[in-house]
């Protein structure tokens, strides 16, 4: 097995993955070693169906690899040889999906407050309001998710992902379902939020402009193969 040094470019290790994943007939080999020297945002770039989203799911703990290991901030969260599998909720990752997936039976504020990990109810709600303000959705707190526009939903989904103080933000095509104007606005917001908060972020996107604008580093993805040598600042 490849030994993951994870620090080939200097800096502290953020994500280290050396694993293979089998979903049905499809196999993905993931070989990633990202450090904070790669910049806050790393984009996985490649054709659809090549395993980018599966890689995010693997890092989040939503899928188990058949071989290999995953480390987050130097801490093993999955190791097939020892049987280690830290459940998703204990990995401290925040995730935004293409569909916002806001819980339809809860208000916007409740959706975000549910993701706050510590504090009493009032404190959680205060923190949720703060996160909503941060993404420009403060006025939507009491709204029901079904009444929101696509862009508003993604803002709330981002607030929800941030509310858990994630050590890593996973963005799975978060803007691809939006119209161009909204996409441009949210792109700027995303960049602002992750840079201000220095939150390591892995982005999956099909949009070259989006990758160019958001990513500090790109990871080339071929069908069934994610990563390899990761060029620092190489977008």
């Amino acid at each position, binding site marked *: 097995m490849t030994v993951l040094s994870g620090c080939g470019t200097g800096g502290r290790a953020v994500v280290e993955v050396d694993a293979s994943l089998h979903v049905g007939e499809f196999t993905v080999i993931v070989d990633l070693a990202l450090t904070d020297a790669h910049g806050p945002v790393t984009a996985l770039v490649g054709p659809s169906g090549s395993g980018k989203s599966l890689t995010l799911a693997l890092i*989040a*703990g*939503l899928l188990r690899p058949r071989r290999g290991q995953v480390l987050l901030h130097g801490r093993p969260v999955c190791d097939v040889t020892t049987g280690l599998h830290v*459940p*998703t*909720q204990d990995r*401290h*990752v*925040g*995730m935004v*999906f293409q*569909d916002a*997936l806001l*819980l*339809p*039976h*809860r208000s916007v504020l409740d959706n975000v407050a*549910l*993701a706050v*990990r510590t504090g009493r109810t009032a404190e959680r709600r205060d923190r949720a309001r703060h996160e909503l303000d941060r993404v420009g959705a403060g006025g939507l707190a009491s709204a029901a998710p079904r009444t929101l526009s696509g862009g508003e939903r993604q803002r709330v989904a981002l607030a*929800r*992902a941030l*509310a*858990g103080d994630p050590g890593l933000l*996973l963005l799975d095509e978060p803007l691809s379902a939006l119209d161009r104007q909204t996409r441009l606005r949210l792109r700027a917001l995303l960049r602002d939020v992750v840079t201000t908060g220095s939150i390591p972020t892995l982005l999956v996107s099909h949009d070259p402009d989006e990758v160019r604008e958001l990513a500090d580093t790109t990871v080339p993805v071929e069908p069934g193969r994610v990563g390899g040598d990761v060029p620092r600042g190489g977008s």
Partner: protein
Amino acid sequence: MDWFPLLLSLRVASIATVLAAVLGVGGAYLLAKGRFWGRGLLEALASLPIVLPPTVLGYYLLVVLGTRSPLGRLWEDVVGSPLVFTVAGAVVAATISALPFCLRTARAAIESVDPRFEVAARTMGLPEWRVALHVTLPLARRGIIAGVALGFARALGDFGATVMVAGNIPGRTQTMPIAIYDAVQQGDDLRAGTMAAILSVVAIGVLLLVNRFSRAGV
């Protein structure tokens, strides 16, 4: 008109529905989400009360809970009186009759919840029990309510299992379906008809409720 059978039926069915709802929703969640040995057998057992003749079900309950069985003796030691031929026996019979309706409907509802919401909840840091409590069960609530309503109707109308386990003691264990049988035996058509009409109205009300909650939507 003696209202005792109606009131007893409502009391027995209400308690049985609460028990069947707790056991049914819990069992439904386990069957929908769990992967364990004997799952298929558990599923078959839970559905058995639908296909078995109620008298057979009642017979089994008598065997399992009767005064000569270990469970029956344990009950008697703890409570001080036997379970059979009591209201408690009627509650057990009605619970078992109602259980598969709660369980099967709740299970279908739980399985129809979009799993992506559960995935999103896990990435929000929610452990499995909170995913169940805050996401899965609320999103399945319409089906769960429909199943519990069906269970209530079934519990209210149970005859065979109840008469086997609780007997037919007027003023003590005689529920409405048994009282209807009694009234017909005695040729009291007015009493039988009135009680049958009351049960029918309740059943139609429950079905209307079930249809309303079964319609799709959150």
